[in-house]
C-alpha cells in the first residue's frame, strides 16, 4: 500500500485515537479516526447516549476589523451582520455564479466573525476570503491555533454542564459562549451535525488533551464514547445534512440543495445574489431530495435514480440508515420528481431498488432542539 501517512497532518488528539484502538484513515489531508469499535455501535451510542468526535480538522478563519461584519455578510448568503453576539449561523458561501464555495458556521464573536469551514476546502476558502477582503478587514488564519471536539447525543448537556456549569444548559440551539483568553480561551456552542442535541467545543491546542480527558471523565457515568468519522457520516446523512464534495459543490446552488432557508434575498448584496435571485424567480431544474429504499443493497454516490425506468437523477450520498433500518440516500432529481411520497427506483449494481422520496431529515426522532427550518418550496 502506498505510504501517504508521512505527509498527513495530525490533530492534537492523535495519541488518544491510537490508544483507543481507532482505525485511522487519510481525510482531507489529516490522519483521522474513521471508527473505534464500529460504525453501527458508534452511531447508536450518539442517538441514545453521548459521544465525542475529534473535528479538529475543520478550519477556523477569523475576520477582524471595523468592516468584519459587513464583509462576512457579503461573503455568505445568510444574515451574519445584524445577528446578536453569541449567535452561530449555518450558511453557504457562494461564487458569483451562485455555486457553493463551501458551507460553514459563522460565529458572531463580539465585533469579529469566526468562520468554521470544511477541512478539504480550507486553503481554497482562505484564498477566496483574502482575495475579496476590503482594506478594513483582517483575515486571520486560526486553523493551527484551534482544536475542536463535538460532544453529541441526548446525554451531552449533562456532561458539559458538569464541566462548564449551568451556562451550558441555558444555551439555545445555535448559540454559544466564549470564556477565558490566550491559551485558556474556550468557545462552547450548541451546534452539531448529528441530529441529536449536542455541542461543539473549541480550545487552543495546548489545552486540547486536558479538554479531551476532562470530557471523558465527566462523561464516564453516561458511558461516553469516542466516535469516528464513519458514524459522523451516517448520522448526518439520516438528517439530510449536506456534505460538501458529495451533495453540494461549486456546480450546485443553495436552492437546488434545499438550502433556500439559508439565503437572505432581502440582504443588500452578497456574492452570488443575482443568479440566486433569478433561480428563485424562475425555479430550479433539480432538487436534492431524501430517499428511503425498500431493499437491502446500499445506494452509493453516483448511482442512477429513475422513474419507471427513465433516468431522473443521481445519488449524491448513500448508506445504511442505521436508526431508520433501511438504506437511505440523498439525490438530485429533476424538478418533476421531488414530491414527497413519490415512488422512484435506484439502480444498485444493475438492479432497480424501489425508493420513496422523503423530506429531509429522513430521521425525525432526534433530540436536536432545532427549530424547523423555513420551507421555501
Amino acid at each position: 500500500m502506498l505510504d501517504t501517512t508521512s505527509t498527513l497532518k495530525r490533530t492534537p488528539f492523535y495519541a488518544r485515537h491510537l490508544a483507543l484502538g481507532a482505525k485511522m484513515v487519510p481525510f482531507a489531508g489529516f490522519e483521522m479516526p474513521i471508527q473505534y469499535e464500529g460504525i453501527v455501535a458508534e452511531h447508536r451510542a450518539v442517538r441514545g447516549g453521548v459521544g465525542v468526535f475529534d473535528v479538529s480538522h475543520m478550519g477556523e478563519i477569523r475576520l477582524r476589523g471595523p468592516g468584519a461584519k459587513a464583509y462576512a455578510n457579503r461573503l455568505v448568503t445568510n444574515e451574519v451582520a445584524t445577528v446578536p453576539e453569541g449567535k452561530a449561523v449555518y450558511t453557504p458561501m457562494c461564487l458569483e455564479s451562485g455555486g457553493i464555495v463551501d458551507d460553514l458556521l459563522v460565529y458572531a464573536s463580539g465585533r469579529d466573525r469566526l468562520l468554521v469551514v470544511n477541512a478539504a476546502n480550507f486553503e481554497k476558502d482562505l484564498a477566496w476570503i483574502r482575495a475579496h477582503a476590503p482594506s478594513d478587514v483582517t483575515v486571520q488564519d486560526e486553523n493551527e491555533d484551534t482544536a475542536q471536539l463535538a460532544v453529541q447525543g441526548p446525554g451531552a448537556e449533562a456532561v458539559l454542564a458538569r464541566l462548564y456549569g449551568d451556562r451550558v444548559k441555558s444555551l439555545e440551539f445555535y448559540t454559544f459562549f466564549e470564556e477565558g483568553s490566550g491559551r485558556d480561551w474556550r468557545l462552547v456552542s450548541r451546534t452539531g451535525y448529528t441530529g441529536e442535541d449536542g455541542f461543539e467545543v473549541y480550545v487552543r491546542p495546548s489545552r486540547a488533551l486536558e479538554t479531551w480527558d476532562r470530557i471523558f471523565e465527566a462523561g464516564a457515568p453516561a458511558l461516553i464514547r469516542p466516535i469516528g468519522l464513519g458514524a459522523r457520516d451516517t448520522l448526518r446523512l439520516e438528517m439530510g445534512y449536506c456534505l460538501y464534495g458529495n451533495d453540494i459543490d461549486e456546480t450546485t446552488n443553495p436552492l437546488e440543495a434545499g438550502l433556500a432557508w439559508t439565503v437572505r434575498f432581502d440582504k443588500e448584496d452578497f456574492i452570488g445574489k443575482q443568479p440566486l435571485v433569478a433561480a428563485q424567480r424562475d425555479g430550479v431544474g433539480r432538487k436534492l431530495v431524501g430517499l428511503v429504499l425498500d431493499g437491502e443493497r446500499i445506494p452509493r454516490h453516483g448511482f442512477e435514480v429513475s422513474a419507471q425506468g427513465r433516468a431522473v437523477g443521481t445519488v449524491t450520498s448513500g448508506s445504511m440508515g442505521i436508526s431508520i433500518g433501511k438504506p437511505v440516500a440523498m439525490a438530485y432529481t429533476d424538478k418533476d420528481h421531488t414530491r414527497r411520497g413519490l415512488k422512484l427506483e435506484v439502480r444498485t449494481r444493475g438492479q432497480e431498488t424501489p425508493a420513496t422520496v422523503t423530506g429531509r431529515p429522513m430521521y425525525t426522532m432526534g433530540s436536536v432542539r432545532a427549530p424547523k427550518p423555513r420551507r421555501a418550496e
Partner: protein
Amino acid sequence: MKVPKDLRYTKEHEWVRASGQEAEVGITDFAQGELGDVVFVELPQVGARVTQMKSFGTIDAVKTVSDLFAPVSGEVVAVNTELKENPALINQSPYEKGWMIRIRVANPAEIESLLSADAYEKALGAHA
C-alpha cells in the same frame, strides 16, 4: 488478527475450508476489519455455478461495497441463510458463523493453488 492454520486463502481475502469434495468459503478476519460493519451480503442460490476468481456475490459494509471472489470453481451446495438476518456475523465470527457458501469442488487441483496460512500472512505483511 486471526489467520487459522487449517484454512487456505486467496489474495482477495477469502478463506476456504476444504473437506472431501466440498469447500466452505468466507472472508478473512483482515477483510472484515477493513470493510467495517457489514450490513448486507448478496450470495448465489444453491445450485448456482461459480468460477474460480470470478465474482460470486457482493458485500455491503456501511462505508463501502466489495465483490466476493470464488476461490474455486464448482456448484453451490449450501448458503449461509443466517447472514440475511444477521450480516454482522461476518464481523463477529468471520471463520465460523460468518461462512458464506459451500461449493462442490469441480477441480481439486484448484484448492492446491490457493495460499497456505503462512503465505497469506506474508501477503498481509506486505499490506502493513
